[in-house]
């Protein structure tokens, strides 16, 4: 009963929002292109799904996001591991990385667009860049956090360096690495949205949203934005489920 009540109360604000929206558009108080009646929005979602433009755009965005995530994630894992394992690497390159990290990631877009054009390559490069930093930071932290006690056990057993890494360092780094990959995925999706807003060539949900704005079609924009949120939410949930599976062997 209590839970049903809580869920019911959660519906109050959305219901009010929808009602105000509907009144604004029906009463002609606002431009119906900006506040279209709810019916139009549902209709847009339906026709665009049926006519496959939405599905095609969605698939294009997801593919792009996955591609950038794989490239940026792999690079982040590699450099993060190098930073975590070698003090020389860390001392030499960490300050440079820290300095570059200060630049707000979207500020790279004009540069990337000048180097790679405004096609697919630029978008992939930007998404990879957005993924890179969080993966690197968390991978490094994981590698450096191997418990001293276990490392001593390794020393007692006279494990070779590679064995120490495989049996001790890597397993204790895994949770942090998973956090990094999860953050990286969120950033990859943020990067996908940004890339598609700024470089509007080719299909994609971001392009779909921007196009809705250019055509002054609020219903299209709104459907696209809802989809942006839905995809972000699903990616996050998926990553969490994956993390739980991978880390199942851990106690608690």
């Amino acid at each position, binding site marked *: 009963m209590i839970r049903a009540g809580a869920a019911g109360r959660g519906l109050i*604000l959305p219901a009010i929002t929808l009602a105000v929206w509907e009144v604004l558009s029906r009463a002609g108080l606002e431009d119906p292109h900006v506040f279209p009646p709810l019916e139009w929005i549902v209709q847009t979602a339906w026709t665009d799904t049926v006519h496959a433009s939405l599905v095609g755009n969605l698939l294009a965005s997801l593919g792009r996001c996955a591609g950038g995530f794989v490239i940026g994630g792999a690079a982040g894992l590699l450099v993060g591991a190098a930073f975590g394992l070698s003090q020389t690497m860390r001392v030499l390159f960490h*300050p440079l990385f820290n300095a570059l990290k200060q630049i707000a990631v*979207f500020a790279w877009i004009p540069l990337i667009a000048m180097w790679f054009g405004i096609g697919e390559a630029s978008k992939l490069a930007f998404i990879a860049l957005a993924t890179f930093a969080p993966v690197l930071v968390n991978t490094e932290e994981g590698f450096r956090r191997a418990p001293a006690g276990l490392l001593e056990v390794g020393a007692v057993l006279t494990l070779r360096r590679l064995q120490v890494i495989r049996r001790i360092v890597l397993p204790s780094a895994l949770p942090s690495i998973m956090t990094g990959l999860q953050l990286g995925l969120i950033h990859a999706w943020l990067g996908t*949205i940004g890339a598609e807003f700024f470089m509007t060539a080719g299909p994609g949900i971001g392009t779909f949203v921007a196009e809705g704005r250019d055509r002054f079609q609020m219903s299209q924009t709104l459907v696209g934005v809802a989809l942006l949120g839905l995809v972000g939410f699903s990616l996050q949930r998926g990553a969490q489920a994956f993390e739980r599976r991978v880390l199942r062997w851990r106690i608690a």
Partner: protein
Amino acid sequence: MSATVTSPPWIRRTVSALDGLIAPLALLALWWFASTRGWMPEQVLPPPDAVASALVDLWNSGDLTANALISLRRVSLGFAAGAAAGIGLGAAMGLSRRTEEVVRPLFTAAAQVPAIGWIPLMMLVVGIGESLKIIVIAVAACVPVTLNTLAGARAVSRGFYEVGAVFRYSRRQVLWRIVLPASVPQVFTGLRFGLTNAWLALVAVELLASSEGLGYLLVWGRQMFQLDLVLAVMLVIGVTGFALDAGLAFVERRLQRWQTP
């Protein structure tokens, strides 16, 4: 024993406090060679001194100060609005389960879309004027501040509330004398995330829809094919972002001096 590779002694001897400069200097040297020897055309990679002189020109012409001030003004207003809303919303939800039940579902749903995702939609509603920038930045700052304030308010120890009950504090007194002081560290975590987000959103919104500001300078440099200008502005954006975060960290340390660690 550590997991770190133990480097040969000669490497370790060379490794000193200044070693962090080696890679940047090497990069700079490589960059300089690549551009002056014509390995890469100047439109693709302008020489470092071109970037430096672009920066000096920007400074001398006053364009840099003017646009940076516009950006800073936007980010201050947007961040202030977003942070105030976030602290209010977070505290309201933290203090009352009922409020949380009403507000949280809509908040969570809206927060699934990153602030920059709302830009085209906001453009339709409020146009591309100054209010667009402020709203987008405020939204970006609001989400982490709300979530952290909520978590902070929830984490206030029961005992404090009981003391408040003994003193017969009103709701307002509970908020000002117990909840806010006790959740300052968590609120500040939210504020720092919020400011980083706000700065990121500022750059995004100025790239997309602005005719002034640092983000606009980037767009302008790109349109003029002046890569030296683009790189110089990126440098300014990096330094400013860093300074903003460092400033907030400084305030945080000052405010929390009274706390026993």
